[in-house]
């Protein structure tokens, strides 16, 4: 039923309006119930007429209010819907076509809403509604099945996108077969071509007035490839709409769904593709099972990573079983590559038949003619051949080397040579090995030498310190031929012992083109084990999924019988991904269809919720009025006002105490009286404890010594005047970030001016005094060499005689090394920097109200006393420098003086 642009989905509820007059009578008869009070003195009032008699009936406006509320509620329950373009002429019914491939996954809700809007529009135009989905299914719906509006809505609500692409040609054929003649066609499409958008639109237009409603993914919607790279992985994504300034996040996930890394990528303006480069350590890379575009739930937004993609296949050619494995030529190569690659050990000829990315070949003199040709071909197809030198290579003149070699090997540092063993030089910027730390302790004792040539320099990936090449490589077609000029075992050099060897091999292995993915073991069949649904969620395979023959796997496309997902076969697990090749957006719509972009689609809006909401608001208002009538409202109002005032007052009164102190007042206060400062970290709890700690220390100092500091200040290292404080205490929060540059500069100036900066990481543990990341935190602080404070340091005797420097924990205290040379020593050798992790402030902290310790301590009050003693010593040391150190020499001085006097006497 509709009323102008209003459409009532539950028109029967309107019958409730008939009840309104009855309600009128009921409501009129019952005024709100008064309160009842006993009042013995009522007798006094017997002759007193009240000024105003209460109405026996509800006032008319209250009645009206209630009627309106009820009427609104009734209208609301009738589910009115705003349907401005409801005047649709659809004789012969409406056909709603929905693209439900994975390309619709990201905006599936929008697509369903678009289609549902079409259902709503058609529902009052009469005629049956037909719904057709374009993605192929195991059981396809017959589009000629006529539905009423409610079941069409139901159908759309329950529909889910398929993890493959729509097949519009098949859908059109089915439509033709059904002989359906709709008066109106609405196509809710994903806006992609799928090689059929234009023809499909034309075919639909031939059947009836066609409206195309386009809902394209807004952002990156598909991952088209994900490869391992030298640093980690490279992931390509595509987007359908070239909206400038869009970013997308790609997440690398483990098989369990935990996120290992995420990368934000930015699309260049006008570009539809972007790459995310992940820097993932190799060990973690092995755990990556898939990449996912954050916020794009579709099968194409997930890229499953199988074994072949993750780990290069490396073949070790012609390995020999040896009795002594540690002396085996390939032992070190095997150990180096095992974590990163799938290793196969076969004869060279067999290796060339296998799908492998790289072949590692030890010292070999010659390669047979047949193998040589095949090897050449294999490299040019993208393979990587890594050769190692050795006596055999040196003796033979093998042509399959990056450069021509001299027919002898060079012997360094032997008894017959003047030359000393050479170290490896820094890797050049142009070298693929650039960035690998140079092994400084590895020496090369023997190597094969390249014939000098013009291009030798460009072919060299690594060299020795004297400039002779250590690793040379030549590009051959899409592949790479790499020669290490030393043996693969430590005979000729220490290189196999080093970590750099592992990295060099790793980078070498992936330097070629992609081989393994194009040539897969073509045997057996691959059975689906886990498959993606249309939203990109992995699940068990559906019953329709069938095994794929291995030889056709490379060309397989996602379909109902081969859904995207992980497939297992004799050659390992392989992934069938939906994202590649990426579908193309389609814009060249034929002229005889009406095209609406999602943004412009007029939606129907249900008004029922609003009406019921207003009705409830009126009921609430009515309640207020009733309360006011009964005289209860003023009291509630008073209580409410009290609560409001309380909260407002609390809010107004509560201000962080620190904010009340401006930097200038702080400076004035600090300049007039001695006081300590602590660094405000932003962690309120920590700051409170640190402040209480300094407060406690100040209190104890006042009790025990003539140093009587005022309450401590919190300072911002970057802003406040630090030089006014004799000591600044920095309690490092757990998730501390490095100090900002401005703060570092001010701290350095403070230290140079003789200040004392106490850094407390609060996490001392046996064997570890301070956090590992302390260096990072304090990077930039101008610190001379540090040393742990010794048991004889002045700190142990500047006031109390103490043995250690305990706080709540008991770690060592690091101070500036007094051994630093005289010129850079500042402040007469008094340390300005105190670094430890013993949480001294926590031990010193007292509640400034009660004076009781704030935190508990191991060892109780004894331990606390010891940490107070350390605090007193620390302050004394800071204030008096090494005065005490001079004092300890007094006995010696006296003795010396006495000796001199004695000597004088004897003279």
């Amino acid at each position, binding site marked *: 039923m509709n009323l102008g642009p209003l459409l009532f989905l539950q028109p029967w509820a309107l019958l409730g309006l008939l009840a309104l007059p009855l309600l009128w009578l009921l409501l009129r008869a019952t005024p*709100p119930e*008064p*309160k*009842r*009070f*006993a*009042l*013995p*003195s*009522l*007798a*006094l*009032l017997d002759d*007193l007429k*009240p*000024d*105003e*008699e*209460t*109405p026996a009936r509800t006032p008319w406006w209250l009645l009206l209010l209630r009627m309106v509320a009820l009427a609104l509620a009734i209208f609301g329950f009738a589910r009115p819907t705003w349907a401005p373009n409801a005047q649709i002429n659809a004789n012969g019914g409406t056909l709603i076509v929905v693209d439900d491939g994975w390309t619709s996954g990201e905006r599936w809700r929008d697509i369903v809403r678009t289609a549902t809007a079409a259902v709503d529009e058609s529902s009052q135009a009469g005629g049956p509604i037909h719904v057709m989905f374009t993605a192929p299914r195991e059981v396809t719906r017959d589009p000629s099945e006529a539905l009423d509006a409610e079941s069409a809505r139901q159908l759309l609500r329950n529909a889910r996108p398929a993890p493959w692409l729509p097949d519009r040609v098949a859908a059109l054929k089915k439509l033709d077969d059904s002989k359906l003649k709709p008066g109106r066609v609405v196509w809710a499409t994903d806006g992609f071509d799928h090689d059929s958008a234009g023809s499909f639109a034309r075919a639909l237009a031939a059947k009836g007035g066609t409206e195309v409603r386009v809902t394209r993914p807004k952002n990156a919607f598909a991952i088209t490839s994900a490869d391992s790279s030298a640093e980690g992985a490279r992931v390509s994504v595509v987007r359908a709409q070239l909206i400038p300034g869009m970013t997308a996040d790609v997440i690398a996930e483990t098989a369990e769904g935990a996120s290992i890394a995420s990368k934000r990528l930015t699309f260049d303006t006008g570009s539809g593709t972007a790459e995310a480069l992940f820097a993932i350590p190799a060990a973690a890379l092995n755990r990556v099972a898939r990449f996912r575009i954050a916020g794009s739930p579709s099968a194409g937004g997930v890229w499953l990573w199988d074994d072949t993609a993750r780990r290069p296949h490396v073949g070790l050619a012609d390995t020999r079983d040896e009795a002594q494995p540690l002396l085996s030529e390939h032992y070190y190569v095997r150990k180096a590559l095992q974590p990163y690659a799938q290793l196969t050990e076969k004869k060279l000829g067999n290796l060339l038949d296998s799908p492998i990315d790289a072949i590692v070949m030890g010292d070999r003199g010659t390669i047979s003619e047949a193998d040589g040709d095949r090897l050449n071909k294999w490299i040019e197809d993208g393979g990587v051949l890594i050769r190692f030198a050795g006596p055999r290579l040196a003796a033979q003149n093998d042509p399959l080397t990056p450069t021509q070699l001299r027919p002898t090997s060079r012997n360094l540092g032997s008894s017959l040579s003047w030359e000393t063993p050479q170290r490896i030089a820094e890797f050049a910027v142009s070298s693929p090995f650039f960035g690998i730390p140079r092994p400084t302790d590895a020496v090369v004792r023997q190597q094969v030498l390249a014939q000098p040539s013009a291009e030798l320099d460009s072919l060299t990936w690594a060299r020795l310190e004297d400039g002779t090449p250590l690793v040379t490589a030549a590009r051959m077609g899409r592949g790479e031929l790499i020669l290490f000029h030393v043996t693969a075992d430590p005979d000729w050099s220490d290189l196999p012992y080093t970590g750099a060897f592992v990295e060099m091999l790793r980078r070498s292995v992936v330097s070629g083109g992609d081989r393994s993915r194009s040539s897969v073991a073509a045997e057996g069949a691959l059975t689906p084990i886990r498959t993606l649904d249309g939203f990109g969620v992995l699940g068990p395979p559906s019953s329709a999924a069938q095994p794929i023959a291995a030889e056709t796997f490379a060309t397989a496309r996602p379909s109902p019988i081969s859904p995207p997902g992980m497939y297992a076969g004799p050659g390992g697990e392989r992934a069938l991904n939906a994202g590649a090749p990426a579908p193309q957006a389609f814009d060249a719509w034929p002229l005889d269809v009406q095209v609406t972009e999602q943004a412009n689609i007029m939606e129907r809006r249900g008004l029922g919720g609003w009406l019921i909401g207003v009705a409830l608001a009126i009921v609430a208002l009515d309640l207020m009025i009733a309360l*006011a*009538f*009964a*005289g*209860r409202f*003023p009291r509630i109002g008073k209580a409410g006002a009290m609560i409001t005032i309380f909260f407002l007052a609390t809010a107004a009164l509560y201000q962080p105490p620190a904010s009340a102190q401006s930097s200038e007042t702080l400076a004035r206060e600090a300049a007039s009286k001695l006081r300590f400062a602590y660094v405000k970290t932003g962690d309120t709890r920590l700051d409170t404890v640190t402040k209480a700690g300094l407060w406690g220390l100040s209190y104890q100092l006042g009790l025990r010594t003539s140093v009587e500091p005022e309450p401590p200040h919190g300072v911002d290292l970057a802003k406040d005047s630090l030089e006014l404080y004799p000591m600044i205490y920095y309690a490092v929060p757990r998730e501390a970030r490095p100090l900002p540059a401005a703060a570092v500069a001010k701290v350095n100036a403070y230290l140079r001016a003789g200040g004392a900066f106490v850094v407390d990481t609060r996490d001392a543990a046996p064997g570890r005094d301070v956090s590992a990341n302390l260096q990072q935190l304090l990077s930039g602080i101008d610190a001379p060499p540090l040393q742990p404070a010794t048991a004889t340091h002045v700190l142990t005797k500047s006031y109390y005689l103490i043995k250690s420097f305990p706080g709540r924990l008991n770690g060592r205290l690091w101070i500036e090394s007094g051994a630093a040379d005289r010129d850079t020593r500042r402040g007469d050798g008094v340390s300005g920097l105190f670094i430890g992790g013993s949480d001294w402030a926590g031990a010193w902290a007292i509640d400034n109200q009660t004076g009781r310790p704030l935190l508990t301590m191991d060892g109780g009050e004894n331990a606390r006393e010891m940490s107070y003693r350390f605090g007193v010593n620390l302050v004394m040391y800071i204030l008096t420098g090494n005065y005490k150190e001079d004092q300890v020499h007094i006995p010696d001085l006296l003795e010396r003086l006495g000796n001199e006097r004695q000597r004088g006497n004897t003279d």
Partner: protein
Amino acid sequence: MPQAPLSQLKAEAAALADDLGTLTTRARAASAAHLGSAGRRRSGTGENFWQYRRHTTEDGAERIDWRRSAREQNLFVRETELETARTFLFWVDPSPGFRWSSNEKTIQKADRALVLSMALAGALSRSGERCGALGGGRGPVSGARAPARVGEDISNFKPGDLFPPPPRDRAAAVVCSDFYSPLDEWRQRLTPLAAKCRDGVLLQVCDPIEEAYPFNGRVRFFRPGQDRERLIGRAESIRTGYLDKFAQRRQDMTNLAGELGWRFVTHVTSEEARTPLGSLAYGFTADGAAA
């Protein structure tokens, strides 16, 4: 608050009576003396010899006891033992409106009135006076049992009881009520009583809400013990009228007491019990200013 147990009230009254100490009834009270009572162990009007004392100039010449004075050089005055006893009768309104309190925390008006009566009775009986309940079955007694008897007799009043007839003998009366019944009714009740009792106190005990009238909005009032209800549309609108009426009634009662030669004392249950005790006892004590 429900009606408190008598024992509790007794204890409360005993404590109050201790506060009050021993009351010495004033001279005028002698006229209401009950003949044949025991001596008061102090000098005063009586038949038995009490003491001789030295004559002072304040004593008139006629007071000299010449027989005694003749034996010595000094003049003596013969004093007799004081022999007075007054009767005090107490009455507490038993109507449901008086046996009522506005909330759980406030004591009932009747209970408070009873406590005050018993406290006064205790203090009076300690100084030898005879106390009893007006309209109670038993006669007045003196001594320590008096307050208990007053309490018990008053507690036995029934809500429907008529105002008791005046006593046969002269007495002093203490009438406790809220005095909300019509003024004429009270006049009729009290006039005959005042004929027998030249001395008396009207004690008005009110509940705090009766004095403050803290009502707002639509309220249905009713009197305890009565079915009649009264619906007030906006209770606050008659607040001024009510308070005027309330003050007017107090004024009327003061005037009525004046006519009878009595005193009118008011008390609100939210106050401490001892507050009205002074003014209650004041009129009866010897050092009271009233003649």
